[in-house]
């Protein structure tokens, strides 16, 4: 089969990108290798590990289960856009640092893109709610406790 190519325009972290992509290119590969936004990580390519989680129109989704062409005319947020332009961390980035919520750091971008959206929707979650929300992100290093603590601390901080 000839390559099935499509012209797409995708906004990532507020920047508009126009590219020609093959229809089968996964969004995760597009972000990482076409746009050079390698902060989004790939762990399983079957939608279980959560490392590739990004936000599509504000909702956390697995970028390995989306085609790049499906992102045409949509807005994406990735880990690279989480820090303020002036360099200030999101409260959850700071809390992850403070609470040792990462070890190898490979699952971390997915965790951040999942849980920052969660905190926006649930400003004062219980520990159990945090764990439920986090359950789609596998971490093999931390045992989750410090991530949970970081999310709870960030929620307190964000409530002020």
């Amino acid at each position, binding site marked *: *089969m000839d*390559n*099935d190519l*499509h012209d797409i325009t995708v906004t990532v972290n507020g920047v508009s990108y126009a590219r020609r992509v*093959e*229809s*089968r290119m*996964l969004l995760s*590969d597009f972000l990482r290798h076409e746009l050079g936004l390698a902060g989004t990580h790939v762990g399983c*390519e*079957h*939608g279980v590990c*959560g490392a590739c*989680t990004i936000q*599509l129109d504000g*909702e*956390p*989704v*697995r970028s*390995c*289960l*989306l*085609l790049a*062409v*499906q992102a*045409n005319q949509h807005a994406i947020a990735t880990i690279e856009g989480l820090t303020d332009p002036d360099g200030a961390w999101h409260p959850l980035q700071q809390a992850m640092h403070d609470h040792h919520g990462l070890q190898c750091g490979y699952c971390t971008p997915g965790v951040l893109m*999942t849980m920052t959206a*969660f905190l926006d929707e649930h400003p004062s979650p219980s520990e159990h709610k945090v764990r*439920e*929300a986090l*359950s*789609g*992100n596998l971490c093999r290093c931390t045992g989750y406790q410090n991530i949970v603590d970081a999310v709870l601390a960030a929620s307190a901080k964000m409530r002020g």
Partner: protein
Amino acid sequence: MKPAPFRYIAATSLAHALALKAEHGDEAKFLAGGQSLMPTMNFRLARPAVLIDLNGLDDLAFVRCGDDATRIGALTRYRALERDAGLLARYPLIGEALPEIAHPQIRNRGTLGGNLCHADPASEMPALMVALGAQLKLQSASGARWLAASEFFLGGLTTALAPDEMLVEIELPASPARSGSCFMEVARRRGDFAIAGVAAMVTLDGDDICSNVRLVLCGVGEMPVDAGADALIGQAITDAAICDVAAAARALLDPPGSVHATADYQRHVAGVLIERTLTTAHLRARHGQ
């Protein structure tokens, strides 16, 4: 784990999507949420020649609650169901089952219609739709038909959809007064496919006599298993009667077994869950959900 090549077409309207499907038939797959299809394509277990993307068809994503029935567009994402307080108040069974379905990121993307058409035997929603007495609207370029959910599922990953048809809408009848429901499942981890799951609904009359009961299981057969429980109708529901229903259902089940559970365990747990869900649904019917 990259998909094999295919031709991608973003449908611009329902008519467009149906025309494409009519043209390409089994060679083509509809792409809704993609949360089941994309993994199988990444593993190259599915290799559709044409992928018809439905995600631009916003008019297929809706929840309309009415007095007699509720209509749900097939492209409605789980997340939209979770956020629809009116729907969850009318059908608490759905609210109870949603958190058991995969994980938040999957529910943000996955659609009700896509899930039903995938027809995974361990999936929760097919069983729920059968329990709730849903009617499914199947449409093709040449017309539409309505089919009961109980007749839609024909086997593992197999439905009554013709090659040119699309599931476009799900209609749920209103629950009668004095109804209670309960969904429970056993899975290895929260969010995994069910080893056994049970959706139970009980309706009582003014004298607390059971006037209707629905009992549908997932994970224990090739498709949703309607375990009957009609034996309860016309009597006051007791623990003993519930145990009888569970025992009868256990005898009827022929679960497949898997790496996670033996068939024996599945049968056993299905029985336990039948007892627990019927008990809870009965209590909720008596005292309010």
